């Protein structure tokens, strides 16, 4: 028995377990969303590197063991090459995360690393398997020699694996193949009369049973929901979750209580949102575009000026005029920021400005009634989950 061999397997097992544990721990960290200080990605990367190191060192062990066997050597080389390629791939992703134009979020990197680790782990398992085969062969040879020298014809004892395999497949061994060879032949093709592999048959029966259970549960007992019910449940759950979150946060801005923001931070946020969402129709300097969106820098407003009206117009849109509703796309605080930014542009007189449209707006004479022109957004896409806007609408009415 080669002790060194066993030793390496033991080492591997010891090292492999923490690697997996790390994966699990990292997954748990992400799942709970708590940031405990250590980025799980580093753990995962560490685990990947560790696994590669193990794979490579295992290879050298095995090369020592079976250096004469060409087949083994070739297979081992392939394993370690694959491991290295994978690691390089991960490394490249890392680099891309730092510099690439399409930045990987740490979340995505996390999934990449998980997959890489799983790959590596499979490689490791394959390698352990190979190692065990090698050991067995080496040991078997020794036993054989022993048996021959003892002059006793000993029957090989079936291993657990081979017994299990036999139960699962019930196949006729290659040596006794002649017994199950069928008489017919087609263009030289013969067929064996092996039984259906039991594991396959169980799989088949299993899927049939599952199917019956599925159909009964969905369509007879109704234990499992139809898709419309699933949807209703999902929306209800979301509504509750969002309400709980908003309640916890204590923040809800709507068109009745919205205040003009003037701090640089909010204006900066608003500018970013404007550039991402509004320039297509209103122009990069809010100068307006012919046939698309009006000039927002002058004192004339079609649907009322002032923070409350602008907020409301952005939030609900004016579907008849082509201004879309942004309430599902921006949070209340974002709507406030972008409205504030737009108002900060008053009087900026950009180049190519569109001529004024609408009425001259005077802040003093701004009654809340101006909301009437925009507050009837018969928007059927409003969803129960949209609590913030739903409550806003209720108040507007």
């Amino acid at each position, binding site marked *: 028995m080669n002790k060194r061999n066993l030793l390496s397997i033991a080492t591997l097992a010891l090292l492999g377990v923490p690697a997996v544990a790390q994966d699990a721990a990292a997954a748990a960290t992400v799942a709970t969303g708590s940031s405990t200080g250590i980025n799980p990605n580093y753990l995962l990367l560490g685990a990947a590197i560790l696994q590669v190191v193990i794979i490579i060192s295992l290879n050298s062990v095995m090369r020592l063991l079976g250096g004469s066997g060409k087949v083994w050597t070739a297979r081992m080389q392939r394993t370690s090459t694959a491991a290295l390629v994978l690691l390089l791939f991960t490394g490249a992703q890392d680099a891309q995360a730092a510099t*690439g134009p399409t930045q990987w979020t740490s979340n995505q990197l996390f999934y990449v690393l998980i997959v890489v680790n799983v790959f590596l782990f499979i490689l490791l398992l394959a390698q352990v398997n190979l190692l065990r085969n090698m050991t067995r062969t080496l040991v078997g040879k020794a036993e054989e020699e022993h048996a021959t020298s003892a002059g006793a014809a000993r029957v090989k004892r079936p291993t657990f694996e081979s017994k299990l395999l036999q139960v699962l497949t019930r196949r006729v061994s290659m040596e006794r193949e002649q017994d199950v*060879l069928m008489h*017919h032949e087609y*263009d030289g093709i013969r067929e064996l009369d092996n039984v259906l592999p039991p594991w396959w048959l169980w*799989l088949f029966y299993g899927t049939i049973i599952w199917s019956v259970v599925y159909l009964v549960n969905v369509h007879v007992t109704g234990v499992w929901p139809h898709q419309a019910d699933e*949807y209703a449940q999902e929306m209800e759950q979301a509504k509750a979750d969002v309400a709980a979150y908003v309640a916890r946060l204590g923040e809800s801005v709507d068109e009745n209580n919205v205040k003009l923001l003037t701090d640089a931070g909010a204006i900066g946020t608003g500018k970013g949102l404007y550039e991402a969402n509004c320039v297509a129709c209103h122009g990069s300097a809010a100068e307006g575009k012919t046939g*698309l969106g009006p000039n927002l820098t002058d004192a004339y407003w079609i649907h009322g000026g002032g923070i409350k009206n602008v907020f409301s117009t952005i939030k609900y849109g004016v579907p008849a005029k082509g201004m*879309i509703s942004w309430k*599902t796309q921006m949070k209340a605080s974002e709507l406030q920021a972008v409205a504030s930014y737009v108002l900060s542009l008053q009087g900026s007189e950009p180049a190519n400005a569109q001529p004024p449209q609408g009425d001259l707006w005077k802040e003093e004479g701004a009654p809340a009634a101006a909301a009437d022109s925009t507050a009837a957004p018969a928007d059927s896409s409003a969803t129960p989950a949209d609590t913030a806007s739903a409550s806003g609408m209720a108040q507007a009415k």
Partner: protein
Amino acid sequence: MLERFHYDNRIVKAFLFASILFGIVGMLVGIIVALQLVIPGLNAAEWFTFGRLRPLHTNAVIFAFVGNGIFAGVYYSMQRLLKTRMFSDALSWIHFWAWQLIIASAAITLPLGFTTGKEYAELEWPIDIAITLVWVVFGINMFGTILKRRERHLYVAIWFYIATWVTVAMLHIVNSFEIPVSLFKSYSWYAGVQDALVQWWYGHNAVAFFLTTPYLGLMYYFMPKAANRPVYSYKLSIIHFWALIFIYIWAGPHHLLYSSLPDWAQSLGTVFSIMLIAPSWGGMLNGLLTLRGAWDRVREDPVLKFFVVAVTCYGMATLEGPLLSTKFFNSISHFTDWTIAHVHVGGLGWNGFLTFGMVYWLVPRLYGTKLYSTGLANAHFWIGTLGIVFYAIPMYFAGFTQSLMWKQFTPDGYLVYKNFLDTLLQIEYAYWLRALGGVLFLLGALLMVYNVWRTVAQGKLVAEEAAEAPALEGVPVTSDGGYWHRWIERSPIWMLVLSLVLVAIGGLIELVPTFLIKSNVPTIASVTPYTPLELHGRDIYIRDGCYTCHSQMVRPFRSETERYGEYAKAGEFVYDHPFQWGSKRTGPDLLRVGGKYQNSWHFYHMLDPGKFVKGSLMPPFPHLFENTIDVDGTKARIEAMQTLGVPYPEGYGDAKAMEDLQAQAKLITDDLKKGGIEIDGDREIVALIAYLQRLGTDIKKPAAVAAK
């Protein structure tokens, strides 16, 4: 009495070379469309846009590459398995040339925009009829050969060929029911939910009975031949064959999970897909276990290598497919690149590699020589495998990534990635890698072309291969192990009938109730037929293959109703001949796009999406601004729709339709004019805008509210 005869190798050679040629072409088009997705500028001309070339790619690889591959393998193996020459040389050659003519007509008509808009069945009605005729020719030739056989029993490969023939005939005829409007324009006989069900019953089983069962037949011939080993289990062949063809036909609705298809039909799609795992794996097992005792040769023989990877890919794809048919996985994978990865594991791995293995095995034998270079074949194997890896893995990642991004919410109830484009740009890198995978796969295939060419050059075609066998009368009936199944193996007509009955059951049970029971498609009072202008717009939408990137199916998920609006209802689609639910979202869903943007927005957007929406990967459609609406065809369109039961007033097509069309066009051009845009009302863009603005708005009309 020993009879002497000759096998016809010429026809095999013809089909085999056609398969190689169209394989190269199909892969090349595949690379072009892959690049068009990341380089919008590559959509260089009206006929050279993704929307028109993507159907060309799928049709070329399915019907030209795999189709010719099937015929090559069938014509080679059937003669030998039945110990006879093909029934009729004339029919063989009619079959060959007519099939190539169909391919050529597809290559011309698809880029020109002649399409039915139904995936994998895009070819227009005259070509559909031609396909039917060729299929009949193939059937006569096949059954003629079977009937004049010198072998008493049919080998398992032949069972698969028979099932293939009869099922494809049924699928093609049922799905191609359409009413011609003009020489190259037709409307599907079915509408909306029903059309979707028929289409995916067809589409799924095109995979099953065009890409799978015939190739299983080929595997059952070429695998044992190449390995020189007996087939592992005759019993497994019997069970998995009958189970496979019976169950496969039911699985179509899994393409429509979480859609407006009734729940019961969706559930049937799910459970029959799950039950399909074992029968599919039966084929894989019988293939791989046949290699028992030949694994040492797999290391040296490229043919076996290709077969092993092909069968393994088959096994992977047929496990993944059922998993994707469960609600859980489908809610993630549908409309993403996961589906694309899945089909390419099957397409590149199973069909591609099995074909390549077959080519490397057949060509030396057809030319009475050895393969020119085993080394090159091995290189092909490794490059091809690498190609599959580089194709599939990035697409899997793209699928997961995009789906997760679509579904992610902030804790206060907003979509994290509100802008669809962000989710697309995130996976742009994967699209590049996928193109690289495609290039590698093609490079491998080009190595094969060179190898085949040199092999042909060093050999000489054995056009007529001499063989001898006793006449059928002299062949005894044997029961061989007491299998009752031996009876049907010597009764080909019964085998045909039984196959047809088995594959008809699933289709009938799913289709008939969906057509006849009203509650399956609850009507909505406010849903009205398209106006003539909208109808033209819809035809343009179909012609330019918008459905290849945009779905019209908002699924009942919070993430979808939040992004797009109310989820789709079955009653909304009753006038959609054909349905346009789509199967992939490279762009956002369009079901509720009506009224979302201004007319001028659509105008500028279609003119140059990349300029209008920064980073957009949608190609420009400048031809819409030059081409005029086919108003001469308005009357025919309205009348065709009336024939299909769309309730336009009597005689509407005569004059009123044209008045309405012009009035609606004027409304749009006037609106555009207010924004400083001058465009003639007869341009296609006007019709397209009319259609887009109509989409999904019917249920928002007052009548819909009243109906509630």
